[in-house]
């Protein structure tokens, strides 16, 4: 060991959505909390490309959401050859909230009770209504744009800022929903539409996925972290955790990590909290083997890494005759359709799906869409699509299956030699039928809105944004990894707070629920420390 550090009260691993919320809550209670983050700080003014003419090219390089393509020093490779969906993530202070689209819907009450309601998977050991105060607190901290009154949810507290504008494109597609009499609503969005909490309103520049240089988008490097650090939280960047060690009683003792110079450091802590996402967290646990835990830490159930859930996506694109000014406004239009969210027994699948509406692609993305040939017909094909498309991302609920899993690849490691994860994933028959239904109904909306042509991709590969289920939450230690407080059944001073603890996936983006759970776990850790 090159450097051994003094013990801290609580050590968090990962500075993304959940790690930031958790660290702030603890620091706010006077607890000494330290966070290790494998990435670095990004400076919104100098590190984001959206002020440069070549901004779109950065989607292929340093802002490619796929770490295997990005291949930056802070990333670890992932063997995804046995998965039709590629896992996506970003490694930096703020984690994947740096490149997210800031969709911020909550899971719905039924998502926590799928066994009771639909006889599939398991119920969560916690309900929507138990989490509600944490959803509300998190909304205030992140800043949420939206409108209350959505009949697809129980009543919510007022949103912090008005909804993202519809523009011509939004007007066009909402006419389609209205014509069919189907549900649509401006989805909660973690984007300031007007000044809020010291950050400005969005100037509708478009590409949220390339980082927000004006800090209108609520990534946790600009929301939770500045506040947490002011309260005394310590954040160590470029710290890549290799493993968690245990003492002779089987309690978590320390995290061993590589610093930016390649030194091996050991950080002792009374409590260790994993917030490294649904792939990074099981990777660390499975790499943390010892005599007491030969199959990986906290893995007596054998479920660490299993039940991996993505949200499978179908993409449906409508082409319209007129210019919809589709490049103006946040790329995610943040309209959500929940018409097909809940189980309907007349269909041939259980649970359901939502659509998210996405604005038109920018010039380069339009040209590279696969629909614009080279040669004589190039300009005609480009003109037909540019600013004239509306896209639905049909997001389906992925039920947990133990054969969908994260394991350690015996032949792959990161630049420090830490073994890398391997993903094995198969799309279930239920998900396939669900997405097929989604493509049909989404096509109906496009046509009702006036689309002249509709195309679709039945399963988008580069769509593994949501990483869930790999350290399942539950009451039974034989059938779950953590309890309702994120505390591992096997090691009582070890917690997990990221999407790994999801029991089921719902059919909406998970970040709002991940952060609410992190705040809920934080309250438990605070109460235990008193």
């Amino acid at each position, binding site marked *: 060991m090159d450097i051994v550090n003094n013990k801290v009260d609580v050590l968090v691993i990962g500075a993304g959505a959940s790690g930031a919320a958790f660290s702030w809550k603890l620091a706010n209670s006077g607890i000494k909390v330290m966070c290790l983050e494998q990435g670095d700080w990004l400076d919104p003014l100098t590190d*984001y490309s959206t*002020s440069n*003419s*070549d*901004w*779109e*090219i950065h989607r*292929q390089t340093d802002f490619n959401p796929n770490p295997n393509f990005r291949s930056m020093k802070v990333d670890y490779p992932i063997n995804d050859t046995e998965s039709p969906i590629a896992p996506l993530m970003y490694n930096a202070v703020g984690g994947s909230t740096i490149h997210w689209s800031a969709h911020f819907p909550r899971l*719905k*009450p*039924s998502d926590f*009770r799928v066994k009771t*309601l639909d006889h599939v998977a398991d119920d969560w050991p916690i*309900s929507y209504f138990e989490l509600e105060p944490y959803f509300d607190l998190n909304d205030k901290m992140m800043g949420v744009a939206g*409108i209350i*009154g959505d*009949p*697809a*949810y*129980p009543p919510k507290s007022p949103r912090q800022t008005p*909804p993202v*504008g*519809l*523009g*011509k494109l*939004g*007007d066009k597609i*909402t*006419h389609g929903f*209205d014509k069919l009499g189907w*549900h649509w*609503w*401006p989805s909660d969005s973690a984007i300031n539409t007007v000044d809020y909490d010291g950050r400005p309103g*969005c*100037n*509708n*520049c*478009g*590409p949220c996925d390339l980082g927000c240089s*004006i800090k209108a988008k609520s990534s946790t490097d600009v929301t939770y972290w500045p506040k947490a650090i002011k309260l005394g939280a310590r954040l160590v960047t470029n710290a890549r955790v290799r493993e968690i060690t245990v003492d002779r009683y089987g309690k978590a003792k320390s995290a061993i990590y590589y610093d930016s110079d390649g030194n091996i450091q050991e950080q002792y802590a009374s409590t260790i909290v994993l917030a490294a996402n649904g792939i990074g967290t099981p990777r660390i646990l499975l790499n943390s083997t010892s005599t007491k835990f030969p199959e990986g830490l906290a893995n007596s159930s054998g479920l660490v890494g299993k039940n991996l859930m993505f949200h499978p996506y179908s993409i449906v694109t409508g082409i319209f005759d007129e*210019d919809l*000014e589709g*490049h*103006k*406004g946040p790329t995610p239009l943040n309209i959500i359709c*929940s*018409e097909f969210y*809940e*189980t309907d027994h007349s269909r041939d699948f259980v649970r359901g799906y939502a659509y998210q509406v996405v604005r038109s692609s920018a010039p*380069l993305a339009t*040209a590279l869409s696969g629909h614009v040939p*080279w*040669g*004589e017909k*190039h*300009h005609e094909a*480009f*003109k037909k699509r*540019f*600013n004239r498309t509306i896209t639905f991302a049909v997001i389906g609920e992925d039920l947990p299956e133990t054969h969908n899993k994260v394991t350690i690849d015996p032949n792959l490691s990161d630049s420090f030699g830490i073994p890398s994860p391997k993903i094995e994933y198969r799309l279930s028959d239920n998900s396939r039928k669900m997405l097929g239904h989604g493509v049909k109904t989404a096509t109906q909306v496009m046509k009702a809105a006036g689309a002249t042509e509709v195309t679709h991709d039945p399963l988008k590969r580069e769509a593994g944004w949501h990483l869930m289920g790999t350290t399942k939450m539950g009451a039974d230690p034989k059938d779950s990894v953590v309890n309702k407080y994120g505390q591992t059944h096997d090691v009582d001073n070890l917690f997990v707070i990221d999407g790994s603890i999801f029991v089921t996936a719902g059919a909406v983006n998970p970040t709002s629920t991940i952060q609410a759970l992190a705040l809920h776990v934080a309250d438990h850790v605070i109460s235990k420390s008193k």
Partner: protein
Amino acid sequence: MRTLSKSNSDTLTVIVDLLIPKKGSLPSPSDINVVEHIDDTISDAPQLMRLFVEGLRDINDKDFLSLQEKEQIDLLQKYECSNSLFFAELIRHTYNGYYTNPIVVRAIGMTGHPPQPKGYNLEQGNNFKLLEKVRERGQIWRNP
């Protein structure tokens, strides 16, 4: 040119202009230095450099520059099938150089400036009023 030889550069100039022909106010790629963009890009990426140098050499070996335009297009179409990896990268980097050039971006109807710091004015839209009808249809969330 940092990497491409004169003959490879000449060949690439003809190829990119066949991939995206000049039309009206839309320039040809060679008008706006797309070949220089590609040369810069591959100069910093050894694997890509090898792919381009070998691919272009192969095309040059077919006496590409002395062919009629239709024959050049036919040859590129054959190449698209037989050397799909090189061709996909050729398309990607040609489009990259072309569609990030401010002259092109203005010609397709945008302001020509990057998204930040100016952003855009977005109309709020007229259809939030339609939400009243959605509300009137009543609760659709399932209370467990």
